[in-house]
Structures are given as structure tokens and as C-alpha cells.
């Protein structure tokens, strides 16, 4: 087995490929996709991935509901999305084909495990006739491969029970794809050895299946060529590959270090946020305490308690959980304690589409609490940005003593990209001082502590934690007198406190707008959160096609950048793609009286570059015509 093919097949250089591995949820497609991603990352490609999980844990085998997929795009140029339509689909059974074929680009390549196309599986997938020979696949390049059989033969000599033999077929597929795209074999062999350490038979079987796949490509005379995707011109440095949830969890852990505070996470499991709880639970050596609460209310309440005690407190959830946390967040707003809420948005209402992304919690984050209960809201724009946003949210929470909501979503949560590791010494210091001294005097001239005496610049109140001698004080949800924090029902005081809480949040230091692309264009695309990749790529395409287009992407949603209104007013048209019914549009319209045109999509699938491109192109053409 060498890197060059023995049959002297032509080696074609291509600039990118988008591969989608699809199979039954038990087929190991995520593992296969992950490993292909790692090898490609090490080769220096730019890449972006998008896993797709079934909502049911153990949907019946072979059914459409049980299909699990992993899309990976690798390229020799800078990319920001996992790609619109895969150019290669690996389908391990009829259900995977049926569920995924519509995604495949016209003329795309299909690598099919023909052994799985028996009557039983065809019926389970809802095929009346066999798509392999009824013309269904005529528009594609099909490569039928008897994967199950070859895998069984390959692993036979390792004493694997016939029942288990086929379980290695994902490694066969990985081997075949590795050959097709001239990936080195050693990293995968090493990976198999580490991953299955101590289970000799499994190592041998997977190794044999992987090699069989690779050799099949070389020797079976069904492929016309194999391909090479050269490294991308990425900024030099050390990279890792993370998904958004991992980056967010690490950001929270690191924020604790940067603030020199112990980290506390109160959480109740919910898709797609649970992985944050899982990841942070593994970081106990950083002094991170995780608490799996009895519900989301308790999760948020425990964070309030921990914050009162002086911890950097987090609570992670998805939409249904954020709804439950509302009252507790109002308490945190009133107590003016720092904490960060991570909302990994998913399709709703109610249970909705738990494994699919949506951006429809923006209004809930802004206003989903009783009374006037303002708090800062931020949103990451890419998987790697999740790391920075966790630190930024913590910075704001600590500096202004306020709960902050981070709006990520199910797409960022699970998709991954190469991340140029930050220089640890360059990370910001977000530490704040606890109060340890009296800050006022009573009528007798004695020193006293005023828990609601504000910093004149930030309007933050002092954070005096229990254990500090002399500064005993009580905080509560009943309206507090300015300064003393004592219960007060005075009308003027309530107005004052309402105004102060609002002014504090309005005054959060938020960087000015950055305009990407053609600052002087007629049209600007306004976006927030995970649509960044698709918008950025769409703007790039439009520019290639000769259009001028600007792109403003918001990471801070409350408060909005101070110059946003002024910047948006420079354009004849402002369009805003969002995975909702126009929530940012409404916010911006209401605040600036600027017409923001909504480009909506709420089908549980992230915007493709093509969708954004054509919607914006249409508008650009109208502008040109008018």
C-alpha cells in the first residue's frame, strides 16, 4: 500500500470536495467523518463539518428515522461553511440513500454499499423498486461496492464472529475514501490503535477493513481517477479542530482562569446543549464544579447562589430551558450578580426539532422576562468564535455584574472548523475586585457598606461575597433602595432603579461595527450568529460575479454597537438572513426606524451559501434596475 496507485490512475488536482457519509445510526458514520476530517486537517486543508444526528436514539435499524450523516468539506482555499450540496455521497444502506440523495449535487458521485440493498432494507426505506437498477441514479456517477461482503472476508482471519464482522465496514468506507482523496494511511492506523486500545481483535478487524477499503480503490477497476486537494493558505500557526459546544465549554473554563475565579455550571441535560455540561464536567482539574440540577429553574438558581458566593457562574440550556429560567434571570437582573446563560438554540416551539438549529430565541433572550429586565446578549458567529464569545460574555457579566445570554445554536454546536490556537498570554484579563471595605458612612460617621452604591463609570454595584468581615448585607428581588439596597416601595426610587438597570446595560462597552466587503456598496447584508459562514461565502460569490456588497455581522445584540444605525443608514438596502421570522429585523427597525428586509428560513437546516446568494442577488438586481 503506497501513496501512489499501482494501476497508474490519473491523479487529478481539485480545489475542494464535499463528502457526506450517511448510514444507519449504528454504522459509525460520525466516527468515520471525524477521522477523515482529522487527516485532512493535518494535511493543511481548510475544512468545515456538519454532523446530522437522528432525533431518536435507537430508531429501528435500516429506517429513514435512523439515518445519521456527517458532511465534511475540504478545500485548498479559505472556507466558512460545510458547503451547500455534497459532491460525494457515501450511502451505507437504502435508507441513507433515500434520506440523502436529494442533497447530492447534480452529477455527484455515489458510493453505495450494494450488499445492503436487499428486499428487506429496500422495503424499510420505502423503495418500491431497487434504485440501483431502476434509473433513479441515472443523473449521478454511481460506484457500487459490496462493502459488507469485502469487509466480512477481510476480517474473517481475525476470528471475529460473523455477527460482528460487518461492524468494521465504516472503516472500509474510510479506507476507500482515503484512497480516493490520497489521504495518508498512517494517521488512521494510529487512530485505530489508540481508540480501541486493549481490544486486539477490534483493532485487527478495523485495520483489516480499512486496508481492504484502500486497496479496493486501487485494484477494483471502477474508478476513473483519484484526487488530491492541496493545503489551503491558512495563517501559519498551531491548529486544532473543535466544534462550537466544545469551544464554548473551553471558553467558560478559560474565562474562570482569566478572571481568577472558580467556575460553577448549573445545568439540566437538553439537546443540543448537553455536551457543554459533559465537557465541563471533565474539567474538574480546573476547579470547575458542575451541578446537574433537577430542572432548568434549579440550574439557573444554583448559578445565582454560586455567583453570590463569588464564583464565575454559568448555566447552559436550549430554548425550552431558557423559558423556564426566565424568572430566575429576572432575579439575577435585580440582584445585579454576574452570570452567563448559554442558550444553544434549537427548532421549536415546544420540543420542535430538538436536533436542528434555529435562531428564534432572540426575542426571548431580549425580552422573555417579566417587567423591564434588560440584560446583555451576545452571539458567536462560528464554532471557533464560541471560545471567544464565552470569554466576552464572562467579561461583560463580571464587569457590569449582570446576567448575560449567549445565543449559539445547534449548527454551531456540532459543526467544526480548524481553529488557530490563540496565544494564551494574549487572552484578556477579565478579573474584577471583590469589595472588602466600607464604601459609605452613616449619620454617626461610622463606616457602612452600601451594596447598591454604583461605580460611576460602569454603574456596576460592588460585589461583596460572604466571608468578608463587616460587609454583611442582604439582597433580594424586592425593589431596593438606590445605594443601601434596603427594601423600598418608593415610586421615585423604583423609577430610578428601573432607569439605572437599563442605563447599565445600555452602557456596556461594545465595539463599533465592522463592515466586511465593499463598504460603499448599495446593499449591506446584516447578520448575527451562525449565519456568518453562509453570508460571508455568499458575499464572496456575489463579488466574484461583479456585484458590490457589504456585510455587517453582529456579535453583540444587546446593546447593539453604538454606530449601527449610522452605518446601516449609509445603504440603500439592508437585508437580513435569519433562521426565524425576522427577529433581528424587528429589533433594528424598532430601534433605528430603518427598513431591514428579512430573508427567512426555518426548516431546521442552516442557510446554504446558494440560498443567501440568490436571495441577495435578486435584491441587488432590483436595486441596479431601479
Amino acid at each position, binding site marked *: 500500500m503506497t501513496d501512489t496507485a499501482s494501476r497508474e490512475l490519473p491523479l487529478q488536482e481539485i480545489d475542494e470536495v464535499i463528502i457526506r457519509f450517511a448510514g444507519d445510526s449504528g454504522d459509525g458514520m460520525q466516527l468515520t467523518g471525524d477521522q477523515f476530517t*482529522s487527516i485532512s*486537517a493535518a494535511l*493543511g486543508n481548510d475544512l468545515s463539518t456538519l454532523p446530522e444526528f437522528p432525533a431518536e436514539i435507537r430508531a429501528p435499524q435500516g429506517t429513514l428515522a435512523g439515518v445519521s450523516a456527517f458532511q465534511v468539506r475540504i478545500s485548498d482555499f479559505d472556507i466558512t461553511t460545510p458547503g451547500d450540496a455534497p459532491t460525494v455521497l457515501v450511502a451505507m444502506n437504502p435508507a441513507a440513500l433515500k434520506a440523502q440523495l436529494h442533497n447530492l449535487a447534480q452529477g455527484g458521485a455515489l458510493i453505495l454499499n450494494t450488499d445492503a440493498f436487499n428486499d428487506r432494507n429496500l422495503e424499510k426505506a420505502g423503495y418500491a423498486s431497487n434504485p440501483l437498477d431502476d434509473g433513479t441514479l441515472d443523473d449521478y456517477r454511481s460506484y457500487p461496492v459490496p462493502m459488507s461482503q469485502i469487509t466480512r472476508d477481510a476480517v474473517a482471519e481475525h476470528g471475529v464472529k460473523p455477527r460482528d464482522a460487518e461492524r468494521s465496514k465504516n472503516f472500509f468506507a474510510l479506507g476507500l475514501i482515503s484512497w480516493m482523496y490520497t489521504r495518508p494511511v498512517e494517521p488512521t492506523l494510529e487512530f485505530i490503535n489508540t481508540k480501541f486500545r486493549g481490544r486486539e481483535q477490534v483493532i485487527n478487524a478495523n485495520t483489516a477493513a480499512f486496508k481492504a477499503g484502500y486497496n479496493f480503490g486501487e485494484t477494483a477497476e471502477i474508478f476513473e481517477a483519484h484526487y488530491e486537494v492541496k*493545503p489551503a493558505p491558512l495563517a501559519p*500557526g*498551531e*491548529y*486544532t*479542530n*473543535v466544534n462550537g459546544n*466544545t469551544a464554548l465549554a473551553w471558553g467558560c*473554563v*478559560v474565562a474562570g*482562569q482569566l478572571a481568577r475565579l*472558580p467556575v*460553577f455550571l*448549573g445545568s439540566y441535560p437538553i439537546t443540543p446543549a448537553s455536551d457543554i455540561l459533559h465537557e465541563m464536567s471533565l*474539567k*474538574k*482539574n*480546573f*476547579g*470547575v*464544579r458542575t*451541578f446537574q*440540577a*433537577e*430542572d432548568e*429553574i*434549579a440550574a439557573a*438558581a*444554583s*448559578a*445565582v*447562589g*454560586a455567583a*453570590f*458566593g463569588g*464564583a464565575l*457562574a454559568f448555566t447552559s440550556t436550549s430554548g425550552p430551558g431558557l423559558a423556564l429560567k426566565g*424568572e*430566575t434571570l429576572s432575579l439575577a437582573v435585580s440582584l445585579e450578580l454576574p452570570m452567563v446563560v448559554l442558550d444553544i438554540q434549537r427548532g421549536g416551539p415546544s420540543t420542535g426539532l430538538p436536533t436542528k438549529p434555529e435562531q428564534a430565541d432572540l426575542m426571548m433572550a431580549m425580552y422573555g422576562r417579566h417587567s423591564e429586565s434588560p440584560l446583555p446578549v451576545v452571539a458567536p458567529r462560528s464554532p471557533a468564535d464560541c471560545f471567544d464569545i464565552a470569554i466576552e460574555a464572562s467579561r461583560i457579566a463580571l464587569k457590569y455584574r449582570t446576567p448575560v445570554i449567549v445565543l449559539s445554536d445547534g449548527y454551531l454546536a456540532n459543526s467544526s472548523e480548524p481553529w488557530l*490556537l*490563540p496565544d*494564551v498570554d494574549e*487572552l484578556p484579563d477579565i478579573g474584577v475586585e471583590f469589595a472588602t471595605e466600607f464604601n459609605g458612612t452613616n449619620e454617626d460617621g461610622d463606616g457602612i457598606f452600601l451594596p447598591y452604591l454604583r461605580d460611576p463609570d460602569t454603574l456596576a454595584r460592588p460585589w461583596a*461575597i*460572604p*466571608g*468578608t*468581615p*463587616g460587609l*454583611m*448585607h*442582604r*439582597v*433580594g*428581588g*424586592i425593589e431596593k433602595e438606590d445605594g443601601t439596597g*434596603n427594601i423600598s416601595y418608593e415610586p421615585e426610587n423604583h423609577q430610578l432603579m428601573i432607569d439605572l438597570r437599563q442605563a447599565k446595560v445600555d452602557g456596556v462597552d461594545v465595539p463599533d461595527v465592522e463592515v466586511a466587503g465593499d463598504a460603499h456598496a448599495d446593499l449591506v447584508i446584516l447578520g448575527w450568529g451562525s449565519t456568518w459562514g453562509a453570508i460571508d461565502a455568499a458575499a464572496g460569490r456575489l463579488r466574484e460575479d461583479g456585484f458590490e456588497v457589504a456585510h455587517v455581522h453582529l456579535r453583540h445584540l444587546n446593546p447593539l454597537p453604538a454606530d449601527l444605525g449610522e452605518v446601516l443608514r449609509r445603504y440603500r438596502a439592508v437585508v437580513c438572513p435569519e433562521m426565524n421570522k425576522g427577529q433581528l429585523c424587528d429589533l433594528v427597525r424598532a430601534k433605528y426606524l430603518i427598513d431591514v428586509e428579512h430573508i427567512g428560513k426555518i426548516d431546521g437546516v442552516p442557510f446554504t451559501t446558494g440560498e443567501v446568494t440568490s436571495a441577495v442577488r435578486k435584491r441587488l438586481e432590483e436595486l441596479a434596475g431601479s
Partner: protein
Amino acid sequence: MTDTSITPTTQPGDWASDQEVRWCPGCGDYSILTAMRMLMPSLGTEPHNTVFVSGIGCAARFPYYMNSYGVHGIHGRAPAIATGLAMARPDLDVWVIGGDGDMLSIGGNHLIHALRRNVKIKVLLFNNQIYGLTKGQFSPTSEIGKVTKSSPMGSLDAPFNPLAVALGAEASFVARTHDMDRQHMMDTFRRAHEHDGAAFVEVFQNCNVFNDGAFEGITKKQNRDANLIPLAHGEPIRFGADGEFGVIDESGCARVVHTADVSTDELLTHDETKHDPSTAFMLARLARGPFEPTPIGVFRAVRRSEYAMASTRQLAAAQEKQGTADIAQLLRSRGTWYV
């Protein structure tokens, strides 16, 4: 039962905040507050290391009146707030105060989970069998058929027995006291304080405005002898002015008997340390309501791993195994490559 080993560094007055107490005149909450302020100096803790956490209700105003740290939270959530605080700060002395509606209705879920986790918080439930703050609706401890503004024809709800709930939630410390006996309150609160884990204390509390006299039948001076059964660890359970009554275990049910009718060794000997909670449960259910002989004191006090400390041990074990915090290492933990 006064602890003489501790020289008080504070006086009861040091534990009183400067806030005017605003309960209705005659409310049972006053005497509980006094008992707490009087007890505190002898516990060996300082106001700055003490936190009172509460939910919402009349009872929940308690933290404002103690000169310690305090959080007046939201309705029902005090046990959850306190759990986060006690986990983040195992060094603190954390008390949770709430009413029967706060802790058994809206916050019932948080109460049982805090108790089963055995996080070191001292939970005092002021049971007045009514919603005081919202002006007199029936509560989860009100007797069936209670006529209130929201139940003009009588409530249909069967009540909770707070101690039975706590025992069912595997609480490691369960006790009951009442607002008419300061010394008994102080002794019981002290025992709760000394307990290394979650402690649950039901305090019978008179709401003289909306449910006056609810416990009079058993807590009024002249009724106490005949109707309060003081539990004492290791001793046969007897009560009455001359010990003329006792409690026996009759095939798994506690029953009140005339001591004259049984031999002394037939009487139930109270063992608060018994791991099996069945006997405590049986005693908790001895009275059907506050109108017949009712045990008070410590029902159960057993040792069980404390939650915050267990969490601290995990942190230490993880540091031992994975090494202490290293950001650079964390960022490289999934493998890296160079471009």
C-alpha cells in the same frame, strides 16, 4: 443542651439587622427570629460566614432581619439557590428559610432534591398551614376541607406531611419544633447546625391573621403535656405530665398507649441514628394533624456523604490525576497540527 466549649464572640444583638421587622404583630415568626438570634452566638460562627437564603412568603422575609449575608430569592427556589452557594462555598454556614407553600408547593421539587443530595444546608420550614403573604389561601399542608378565599366550599386537597416528605426524600436529618417553645427551637436548630449534611426542620408556626390557633391544640402551654411527645435519643418514648402515655410499635404502626397498660420494654426506644427510616416515618405519621399527640424533636440524624465535600474531593482527585489548570494544554487536548 448548651454547648459550653464555645466562647461567644457575638451577642444576640449583633445578629439583628437594622431593618424594621414587618410581620403582623403576634405572628409566630417573631419568636422563631428571636430563638435564632439568641442561638447564633453560641454556635461558634460569625455573621460574615453565615448566609440566610429564602424564597418568597412571610417566612421568607427572615433573611432581612438577620445581620448576616442574605438572599431573598424567588418563590420556591431557595433550596436550589442555596445548593449552588453551598457547593461554591462549602466554608459557609447556609440556612434556608421558607413557608409551607414556598417549600412544599412551588418549591417541592427543589426541596426533595436538596435533601436527597445531602448538601450542607439547614432548611427551616415555617409551617403555618396557610399562604400568609398572599392573604390566606389553603396551602399544601392545610387540612382537607379547609375553607379559605380560594376554597369557599372547603379545600379538596389532601395535605402533605412535611416530615414524611423529607424522610421519603432520604433526608439525613429530620426534626420538628414549634414557635411556642424557644428553648426547644434553639436546641433543635443547634442540632441541625451541627449536622454534616442537609438538615430539615419543620417549625409549627402560628399565623394569627389567616390561620390563628392552628397548632393551639398541641402547643399551648396547658395542652403540651398531653399532646407533645418529646423525642429523646436512646430513651423510651413517653409523654404526659407524669409520663403516663407512651408509644409502641404495633405491627409497623406507631400507637399511643397508657404506660400502665404495657411493660416498659414494650415502649418504643427512640433511635435517631437508625439508618432504616421506617421507624422515623411511622413516628412522623403518628398524629393525623395538630390536634392529637404529636412527636417533636429530632426524628432522624444519620451520617451520609455530604454533597459539597464530595464534589470538592472530586476536584482534588481530578487535579491529582490530570494536573492543575493549564490553558495551553487544554487547547491542545484534542490534538493539533501546524500550518
